[in-house]
């Protein structure tokens, strides 16, 4: 997440204490325990997940992939969450730069304002937004969901970027400017590449939040259905293991993708050095 992340050739491979390594492994096990359960029951031949397991099947994957509503909602969710993550990061970055690097009066006020949406219960934000959208009812649906999630995530995106940029060496900017780079070029040539890991991290968090948010989205979604809306919507019955199946796919695909990109990054750093 820091500029330092780019340099991977760190001469420090897992030489930490055994206890520390074991502890970290334990925490990761804790994080992935429920995930393992979700994946396990995606293969269980029983309509209501629970022990004892009945038998192996791949039916739930078939059911998930052949359910047009479920699949459509997955892609809608990915699309909307990506949009709002990019948008939130895009509006957060300039503000974070100003807050971190310039003298701003009322800095505390600005920060309080930025953090306030986190604390307000989401139903309140949902209702407030739906009242606001009375002025522009045409935005209800995907645009409104993007707007809502950008509002929810831009606040902490700004704060996280702000705290990262505090550690940014000012002399990089001054050197670039001194060598004739205009503000815009400084941004694209120096700030953006150096802050890229932090930006990616923030985007990842914003995406995660937007991808899972249900309450505000429900209020402003109109007839658009995101994955969380579909999942929460099916909670009146028993959650189908088809949802386990689709969750497993999401997890496995993202784990594989991140592992591949990690390997790619390591290869890159090896070949360059």
């Amino acid at each position, binding site marked *: *997440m*820091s500029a330092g*992340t780019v340099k991977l*050739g760190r001469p*420090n*491979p897992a030489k*930490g204490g055994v206890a*520390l390594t074991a502890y970290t492994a334990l925490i*990761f096990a*804790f*994080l992935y325990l*429920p*995930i393992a*359960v*979700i994946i396990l029951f995606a293969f269980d031949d029983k309509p209501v*997940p629970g*022990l004892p397991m009945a038998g192996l099947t791949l039916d739930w994957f078939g059911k998930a992939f052949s359910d047009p509503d479920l699949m459509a909602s997955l892609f809608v969710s990915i699309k909307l969450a990506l949009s709002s993550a990019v948008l939130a990061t895009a*509006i*957060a970055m*300039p*503000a974070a*730069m*100003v*807050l971190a690097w*310039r003298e701003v009066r009322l800095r*505390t006020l600005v920060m309080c*304002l*930025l953090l*306030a*949406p986190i*604390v*307000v*219960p989401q*139903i*309140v934000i949902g209702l*407030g*937004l739906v009242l*606001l959208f009375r002025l522009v009812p045409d935005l209800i649906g995907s645009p409104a969901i993007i707007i809502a999630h950008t*509002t929810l995530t*831009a606040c902490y995106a700004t*704060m*996280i970027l702000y*705290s990262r940029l*505090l*550690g940014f060496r000012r002399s990089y900017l001054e050197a670039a400017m001194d060598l004739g780079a205009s*503000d815009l070029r400084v941004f694209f040539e120096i700030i953006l590449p150096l802050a890229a*890991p*932090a930006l990616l991290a923030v985007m990842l968090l914003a995406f*995660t939040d937007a*991808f*899972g948010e249900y309450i505000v989205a429900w209020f402003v979604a109109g007839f658009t259905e995101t994955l*969380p809306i579909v999942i*929460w919507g099916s*909670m009146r019955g028993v959650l189908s293991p088809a*949802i386990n199946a689709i*969750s497993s796919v999401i*997890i496995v695909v*993202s784990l594989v993708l*991140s592992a591949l990109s*990690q390997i790619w990054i390591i290869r890159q750093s090896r070949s360059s050095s």
Partner: protein
Amino acid sequence: MAGTTITPAASYGSTAQAASVKRERGHIIAGLAPVLLWQTLFFVIPMLILLVYSFWTMRDYRLDYTFTLDNYVAIFTNPIYFKAFLLSLQVALFVTVICAVLAVPVAYFIAKKAGRWRVMLLVMVIIPFWVSLVMRAFAWRLLLGERGFINRGLELTGVIEQPFSFLLYSPTAIVIGLVYAYLPLYVLPLYASFDKVHDNWIAAAQDLNATPMRAFWEVTFPLALPGLMVGAVFCFIFGLGEYIVPALLGGGKSLMISQAIRLEFELRQNWPGGAALSIVLMAIVMAILAVSLRWLRPETAR
């Protein structure tokens, strides 16, 4: 632009000063404008609408537009809200402290010991959250439940004869759920802070005969404090608004403040009352924030 500024006057520092102040102000405005405009439009204005609502009342499911402070009076005279707020405060403090303690070693490991796999490990901290909260809560129920994996495992290995029922829908389950939900909020900023601590500084401390543990507490930890504070502020604020985890894993046996707000809006359809409650909550959090941001201040000193 060049034409106006290039004049051979003897002293025009003040003009330059004005121009630079203007430029600086331009930068500040241009930088803050997008996010502030956005938040004003899509957060402040909706909240202002609700603020207006909070001075009205709901009678027979219709708004009565007479100005009144009754909603606020009702909040401060109802001990249930106070109790609910205290409970939320407890939860927030709990996650803030426990998750900090649990997250520090993990973040340290990822930043300092994970070598090339740091990015991968960081992403792995987030990935579980791409599965719907509902699904993860249901999975925890399958783990902690009466006939869940843990009880089954303990029974099969002969550790216990009767399943533990205190694992699910209990304070234990709430603790597990909250730690699960809030750990990444700490790991990410803490990682960033640990990453900024140079290995040389740690080596220097160890060189001065500090044990690795001592070096950690004397050098690494103080330097990582800003990240810890960022995590703490986020955790605390998120924790105050929390209710889903206690509802899904705690069995919904107690009332948190944001549930009380929901009840007001939903069951009673009392928007003015719910709005007033939200505004009081927001005011309290703002006050806490303003104080805690002062703690974060040293970080801004360059």
